[in-house]
């Protein structure tokens, strides 16, 4: 029933596009102005709904890229045969309107006050988006929790938020692995995330870390199983899988 929305309910609303930023050749961040936003947690999503002239609707769920308290932003990867992402990454301009609902989700969320347990973030491709919200939330809230981000990307130009991630930040280690193309003189890792790389990059289970793994489904299955094999309790390995991405 239009007009009777109660605060706290999840209802579609119209957001305005405030800014768009190209992160890579195929990835764009869209900053939104949402009139009735209840605030979000790091790791939550929002749904986007596009309606065609003939009434056909397509909905997609995107991770929120900004930290709690920051303007709402999503980072979208363009999928070659996508129904929604080509519009969001190519057509959408500041001033345009977008139907959204959110925030959504409570499982893949970093509340931000996890004592001193170290944080392990493992990203495949655009799986880095919700983890970037967590990194920013850690920074903004003055948290001193030690954090490592293990980030798998196809090549250096495919690294999303590259400049931001390379800013030195106390207690934060960024570990890249490039799966397809490594630039000359590359001293980081090469190849996919596997048991060997996890053993090297992950905190010891003895430090009682909490892990958040996000990426394409096969990436998440491999990384999460690898962490459990290292001795991480399954309930301390939070996972989020997405589809449609090019293999990373």
């Amino acid at each position, binding site marked *: 029933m239009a007009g009777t929305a109660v605060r706290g*309910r*999840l209802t579609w609303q119209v957001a305005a596009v405030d800014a768009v930023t190209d992160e890579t050749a195929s990835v764009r961040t869209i900053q939104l102005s949402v009139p009735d936003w209840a605030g979000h947690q790091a790791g939550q*999503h929002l*749904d986007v709904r596009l309606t065609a002239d003939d009434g056909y609707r397509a*909905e997609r*769920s995107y991770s929120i890229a900004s930290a709690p308290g920051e303007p709402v932003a999503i980072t979208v990867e363009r*999928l070659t045969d*996508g129904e929604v992402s080509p519009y969001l990454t190519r057509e959408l301009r500041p001033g345009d309107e977008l139907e959204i*609902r*959110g925030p*959504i*989700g*409570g*499982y*893949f969320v970093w509340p931000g006050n996890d004592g001193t347990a170290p944080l392990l973030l493992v990203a495949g491709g655009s799986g880095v988006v919700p983890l970037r919200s967590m990194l920013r939330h850690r920074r903004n809230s003055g948290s001193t929790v030690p954090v490592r981000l293990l980030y798998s990307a196809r090549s250096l130009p495919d690294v999303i938020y590259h400049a931001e991630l390379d800013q030195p930040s106390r207690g934060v280690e960024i570990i890249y692995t490039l799966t397809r193309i490594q630039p000359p003189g590359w001293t980081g890792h090469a190849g996919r995330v596997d048991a060997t790389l996890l053993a090297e990059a992950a905190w010891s289970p003895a430090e009682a870390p909490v892990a958040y793994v996000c990426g394409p*489904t096969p990436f998440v299955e491999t990384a999460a199983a690898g962490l459990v094999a290292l001795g991480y309790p399954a309930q301390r390995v939070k*996972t*989020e*899988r*997405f*589809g*449609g991405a090019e293999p990373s």
Partner: protein
Amino acid sequence: MDLTDALDGNAIGGLLYEIFDAEMTTAVGICAACGAAGQLAEGVVYLRAPGTILRCRNCGAVLLAVVRHRELNCVDLQGLAALEAH
């Protein structure tokens, strides 16, 4: 997106909220087939089956099926022995 892409329950947080009017990815469901308990976020999700399907990560049984017709969601919960939101 490939038809066979298996996602997880995080992907249907909005749809579940729409149906139950509550945050449900952290709700714990008990599989009617094998008895495994798990948060809905941990289930295996197929968005492009005929409808949306949530399967038990332990045994693969269908826990929940949703088919949308116009603005109406038809929800089949027979695969859940219990469902508890927090």
